[in-house]
């Protein structure tokens, strides 16, 4: 019927953080994969700030890595500054964040993609999907250049490119998916014609300046905190970062801190009518947690100053990213604002900040495998689902890619539970609750902030990855070594005694009561501020254990009671998750449910009771009644 140039199991459209992960995940499952993107040079492009990780996000990077993704490894090869955020707030919420050299990151991502077997990259802009006659299943994709490729599944990761429109002030607005790159309209029109609901979001980015024009003497410096951190363990770097050379250990660079004060606020207030967002050019909703500087001034007029971070864009450029100054004011006003900032009085602006509006598809149109409910074989991941952030995109990319790959090999889809990962929380929130502003992860979105941590991603996800067969032999060995280290750490802590004289130097240093007689190390490790590693060192055991395993075990020992609370909750969710809902339930006719619940359930078609419990507007009473209705439904099925 169609003359395909070649055929694949899975085609991934887009080479950003969602697309690259989707392609790798499907290929790791053994599916044949094509990644089609408008420019191969921009694979792995960091479109906004030059940093990977942060609170909750850093944990996602490690989860992506544990599932065989590339983001952790690419970051390790490109990191030019590292900080562990929340270090003072307890190891349970430690959050790794790395500033990256954009060029190094892009190159690392592209080589990791090209190292992956079963994965082919193709340059082209997809103009349309090729569907079956009913328009209900995927057959392939065709590019603007007229190249046709067959596929059983397609993952769309279009970022901000679907009908993207860039705004700088009220006068200046142009079509574009990213500064200097064209938007995609044909595909957007086809998706809308297919009956999918489409909405608009906006996001923004700050100006970039020439570092040679900055007076650093006025700025506060922020050095790299440590340089020993690696996101990736599944790839087990053979040499420690500190002794490696080249991109394995890029030179560390500082960031700089300054602030926007009263003069800058005045300029913004005087020109607010010229802002694309406040002058009426944009009506779409933007994120509350990543506000434009216009938002900050108008919503919090009492704040005296707002911090500005100057972040290096890379080793091979003097360009700096002005974090904190996202704006859609006209370029000349942006320059005026920059000049009001201490240290930037003579700053030259290389690139103006802008706001961008783009299409997204409300994600309640997806099932939990990220497949579009209405079109068999079509998956969405990333900003197309109304999220923001590289990490959120990558997490969805992994899941969409895995599920596309699984579908092609006739296997059941994988759904990560909320208790397993932040990726699980993210996807469950998207498909169950939907979004009303660009979605970003926070620790407060998770009920499992203590048990879902950056240090234990491998414990949480390796079993799933092993079962899916995502690891190669070397990775499997690394993971097995880590599990063995976990067991050994636990055993040593529970079986080794420590004498009062051995513990004394540790305990007296932190005003903790001295031991009266010898006790097991685990017992002392329960005390606040006593590290398991220091106890091991005092007794002289476990010196060669993986420090990551020691940290995870220490937390499990120290906060066992609190972790148990979360795990009890997790078990409850698991049990509710096992109560599956038949696909043919007629919610509209369930008179024992509230009208609101009936509408929501009909629209979302949840798969399990656990998912129902998180739909806003569905009450505990509705859930009880739903259980009764389902039992009735089963009985009818048996008798009829």
């Amino acid at each position, binding site marked *: 019927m169609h003359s395909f140039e070649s055929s694949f199991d899975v085609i991934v459209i887009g080479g950003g953080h969602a697309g690259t992960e989707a392609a790798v995940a499907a290929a790791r499952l053994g599916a044949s994969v094509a990644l089609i993107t408008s420019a191969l040079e921009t694979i792995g492009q960091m479109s906004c700030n030059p940093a990977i990780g942060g*609170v*909750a996000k850093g944990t996602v990077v490690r989860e992506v890595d544990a599932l065989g993704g590339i983001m952790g490894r690419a970051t390790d090869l490109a990191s030019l500054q590292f900080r562990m*955020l*929340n270090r003072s*707030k*307890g190891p*349970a*919420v430690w*959050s790794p964040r790395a500033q990256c050299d954009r060029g190094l990151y892009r190159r690392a991502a592209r080589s990791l993609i090209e190292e992956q077997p079963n994965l082919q990259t193709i340059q082209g802009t997809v103009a349309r999907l090729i569907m079956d006659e009913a328009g209900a299943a995927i057959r392939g994709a065709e590019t603007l250049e007229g190249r046709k490729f067959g596929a059983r599944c397609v993952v769309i990761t279009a970022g901000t490119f679907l009908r993207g429109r860039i705004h700088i002030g009220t006068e200046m607005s142009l079509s574009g998916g990213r500064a200097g790159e064209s938007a995609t309209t044909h595909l957007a029109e086809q998706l809308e014609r297919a009956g999918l609901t489409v909405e608009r979001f906006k996001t923004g980015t700050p100006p970039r300046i020439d570092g040679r024009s900055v007076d650093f003497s006025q700025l506060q410096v922020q050095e790299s905190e440590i340089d020993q951190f690696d996101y990736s363990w599944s790839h087990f770097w053979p040499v420690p970062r500190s002794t490696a050379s080249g991109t394995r250990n890029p030179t560390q660079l500082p960031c700089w801190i300054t602030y926007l004060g009263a003069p800058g606020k005045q300029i913004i207030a005087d020109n607010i009518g010229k802002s694309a967002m406040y002058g009426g050019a944009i009506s779409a909703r933007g*994120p*509350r*947690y*990543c*506000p434009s500087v216009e938002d*900050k001034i108008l*919503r*919090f007029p009492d*704040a005296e*100053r*707002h*911090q*500005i*971070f100057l972040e290096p864009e890379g080793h091979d450029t003097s360009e700096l990213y002005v*974090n*904190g100054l996202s704006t859609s004011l006209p370029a000349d006003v942006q320059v005026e604002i920059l000049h009001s900032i201490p240290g930037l009085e003579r700053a030259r602006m290389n690139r103006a900040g802008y706001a961008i509006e783009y299409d997204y598809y409300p994600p309640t149109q997806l099932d939990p495998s990220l497949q579009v409910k209405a079109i068999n074989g079509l998956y969405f991941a990333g900003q197309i689902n109304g999220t923001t952030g590289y990490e959120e995109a990558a997490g969805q990319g992994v899941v969409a890619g895995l599920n596309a790959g699984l579908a092609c090999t006739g296997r059941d889809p994988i759904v990560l539970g909320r208790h397993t990962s932040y990726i699980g929380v993210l996807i469950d929130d998207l498909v169950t*609750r939907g979004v009303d502003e660009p979605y970003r992860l*926070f*620790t*407060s*979105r998770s*009920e499992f*902030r*203590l048990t879902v941590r950056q240090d234990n991603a491998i414990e949480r996800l390796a079993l799933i990855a092993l079962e899916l067969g995502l690891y190669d032999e070397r990775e499997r060995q690394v993971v097995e070594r880590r599990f063995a280290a976990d067991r050994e750490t636990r055993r040593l802590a529970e079986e080794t005694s420590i004498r009062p004289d051995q513990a004394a130097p540790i305990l007296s240093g932190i005003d903790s009561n001295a031991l009266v007689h010898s006790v097991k190390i685990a017992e002392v490790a329960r005390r*606040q501020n006593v590290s398991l590693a220091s106890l091991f060192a005092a007794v002289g055991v476990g010196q060669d254990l993986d420090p990551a395993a020691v940290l995870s075990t220490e937390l499990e020992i120290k*906060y066992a009671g*609190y972790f148990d*609370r*979360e795990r009890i909750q997790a078990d409850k969710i698991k049990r509710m998750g096992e109560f599956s809902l038949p696909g043919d339930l007629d919610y509209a*006719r369930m*008179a*024992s449910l*509230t*009208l*609101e619940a009936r509408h929501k359930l009909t629209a979302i078609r949840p798969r399990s009771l656990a998912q129902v419990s998180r739909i*806003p507007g569905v*009450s*505990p*009473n*509705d859930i009880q*009644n739903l259980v009764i209705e389902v039992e009735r439904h089963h009985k009818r099925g048996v008798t009829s």
Partner: protein
Amino acid sequence: MDETIAAEATAHGRAAIAVIRISGLAAFEIAGRHITPWPEGHRRATLCTVRDGNGEVLDEALVTTFLAPASFTGENVVEIATHGGVVVPTLVLAALVASGARVALPGEFTRRAVLNGKLDLVQAEAIGDLIDSTSRAMQRVAMTQLDGGLSRRIEELRDRVIGLESLLAYDIDFPDEDDGPIPKSRIMVATGSVIASLNDLLATAPAGELVRNGALVVIAGAPNAGKSSLFNAMLGRSRAIVTEVPGTTRDAIEAVLDTGPWPIRLVDTAGLRETTDVVEQLGIEVATRYLASADAVLACGDTADGVSRTAAAVSQLTDAPVIPVRTKGDLASSLDVNTVSATTGQGIRELLDRVAEVVSERYGRAPADAPILTRERQRFCVEQAREEMVAFAAAIEDEALPASIAAVHLRSAVNALADVTGTIDVEDVLDRLFRTFCVGK
């Protein structure tokens, strides 16, 4: 809940009017078969003719329709106000049932209102209290809860704990922000004030029970000491509802007196002398049980000597204040203690005042419009919330736990408070946080 239910909404019996209520998906359809003309527009009382299935006229009635969800139950509802009595409402109800309605179970309309989100749990409980209320005090409290008084108070407390949670969430989720870390003192002050409010609310629980059940005032004394006459005389002085205590009708009679600030549950007990009569023995055990839980005891006797003997005996069996009462005052010569006469009514008013005074000494002033906890269930949830808040305060104060871990207590406290009225959502924390802080660099 797919069935349409109907019932007489007013008490069955002789009365000027009776209201029959029908609720459910088919309420309009079923009622429509019996009512002409059908009212134009909703929520407007219309004079209609009600007929049975054979077209025979049953009554002229005022009919009001309510379109879902703007009704008591949140469903389509028709209220038919017929003439009262035993016959007409029964016939109308029978006609509705013949057309497909089911007779509602007790409390089923309210249950549907809760299921349909028209009332929260506290409000539903308040409706029960309002219907059952035997005193002005109870009715006032129930009206306050029904109006959402307690729900609002709980909501407000919950909101404050969520506020605290969002302070911690801000610290964890936005480590690089302008405002910097939240000072410990700010968290401690907010925590202390939530605990104080929870304590205030918990302190209302005894008053809540008192308002629901009335203060237990027991009349005690030897047989023929004039107890029953006193009981009746006190009843005669105020509005009262007499109830028989099941199984002990002969031995203890209760009445609720709506007098003074607190409702009084007045109990007339059997004689307190030793007996071999099994039935009377039973009565004495009942009396002893009542005395043990009494809020006040009236120790009666028809002589000064009798009064003091009774008072001494009663004091052994109760911690409650004992009020000596000299009965048959019309026959007495000296008026040393509270002397009353059931015959002349002498001293009864004063005795009621004295009882009110003693109860108020014990429980303080009756609550005005402030929300109070009236149910064990509510008290249990609030107590749990307080325990979690106290544990949180201790952890933060001693820095025994990192805030991220201690926050588990806050979430548990929020859940406990939510259990009083309804549910909670994590989005609440973020909404709160974004309202309070300028976040995002």
